[in-house]
């Protein structure tokens, strides 16, 4: 995956349209999955994905490989686009129908559906990561939303990421073994 990235980065930095085709084929499912966790409707999600790809294309020359992988960079752009859109939608809904502050105290969507598929990330850790990564809350806002001290929020983020790492490193090792066996 990363060897291929190298070529794509070059194309992207030269503003070559082929870059977007290649990035789209390789990453759009992962990015769309993330967008769908943030915005509630598929129509909006498609708009967000489109907007994100146009941003990726126009910001391509500013991507700095020494600061992180291309995938992480794209994930961040896409996530931020989705969060902005979601906030806009929320403000609009609030203005039009004065609905209840749903989703603030208790996000309904099972954002990181880790419980089922990957190990057991406890609810309390998951919730903190959900609010921060998918809803764009600052750690201070999480403090208010969940009514827990800032120190606790920080340690939960830390533990959640550590647990995620563990889960995925086990999977990674398994995958490598499988690949070796196939060879």
């Amino acid at each position, binding site marked *: 995956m990363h060897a291929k990235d190298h070529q794509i980065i070059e194309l992207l930095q030269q*503003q070559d349209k082929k870059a*977007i085709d290649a990035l789209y084929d390789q990453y759009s499912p992962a990015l769309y*999955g993330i967008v769908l966790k943030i915005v509630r409707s598929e129509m909006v999600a*498609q708009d967000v994905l489109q907007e994100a790809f146009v941003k990726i294309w126009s910001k391509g020359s500013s991507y700095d490989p020494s600061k992180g992988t291309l995938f992480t960079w794209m994930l961040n752009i896409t996530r931020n686009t989705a969060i902005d859109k979601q906030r806009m939608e929320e*403000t609009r809904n609030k203005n039009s129908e004065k609905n209840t502050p749903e989703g603030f105290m208790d996000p309904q969507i099972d954002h990181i559906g880790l419980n089922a598929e990957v190990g057991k990330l406890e609810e309390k850790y998951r919730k903190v990561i959900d609010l*921060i990564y998918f809803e764009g809350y600052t*750690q201070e806002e999480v403090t208010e939303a969940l009514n827990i001290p*800032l120190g606790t929020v920080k340690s939960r983020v830390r533990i959640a990421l550590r647990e995620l790492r563990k889960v995925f490193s086990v999977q990674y090792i398994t995958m490598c073994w499988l690949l070796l066996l196939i060879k």
Partner: protein
Amino acid sequence: MDKETFLESGLLEQYALGIADPAEEQVVEQMFNLYPELRQDVVDMRSAIEQYALQHAIPPPPAVKTKIQQEIERKTAAPQQIATTGSVSWLNVVVIGALVVLCTLTALRMRSLQVENKNLQGQLITCESREKIVAFLKDPQTQPMLLQGTAYAPQAAALVYWNEEMQTAMINPFKLSPLNRNQQYQIWADVDGKMVNAGLISTQLEKYQSLKYLPNAKSLNITIEPIGGSQAPTVSRLVANHAI
């Protein structure tokens, strides 16, 4: 800043998640120089998130790809058309000029509406001052320093940004807990052995606030005072400090 305090602060996770602001990023990158092994932690955390995204991938409908290609086509075609028009009549130039002005005005209007919107949402920092803050934080002369919690408040911490050249200082009270309604945090600088008032931290604890720059300050200290501040610091309620 030692490694323990830094890890405690949660900045590394914020950086890995891509939600740290420019000043916080700067602090993290300074820590990378001191503790290179932290880079690997970030790589690991990020690859966990990447793995997570890959596992939850959902293919978008094929129409989206076409739309993106069209949009990019449109964006790249637009400037070329103007360039290739060969003999441009004065009328065209005037029309294009007028359009540019109109677009700029619309963009400016949109921008001011956005700012208004932000203000309405209770954000106190306007776009303009935000840019100034970012410029200040990014200035190479701006030194971040961590005010660490005391025995009285071990969990407390705040980041002060100190710029000798610009004679300016700001504080980010990122780890000060909210106080009750009749109390407020106050900052004190030790100047020639005397504690001099360097300003109050707003009760909302907003992220970037100015504080008085005192050229000969030897240390900075934060105490809890009655709302509105005191003439002299209540040393028994010293929550965080740092020697310059």
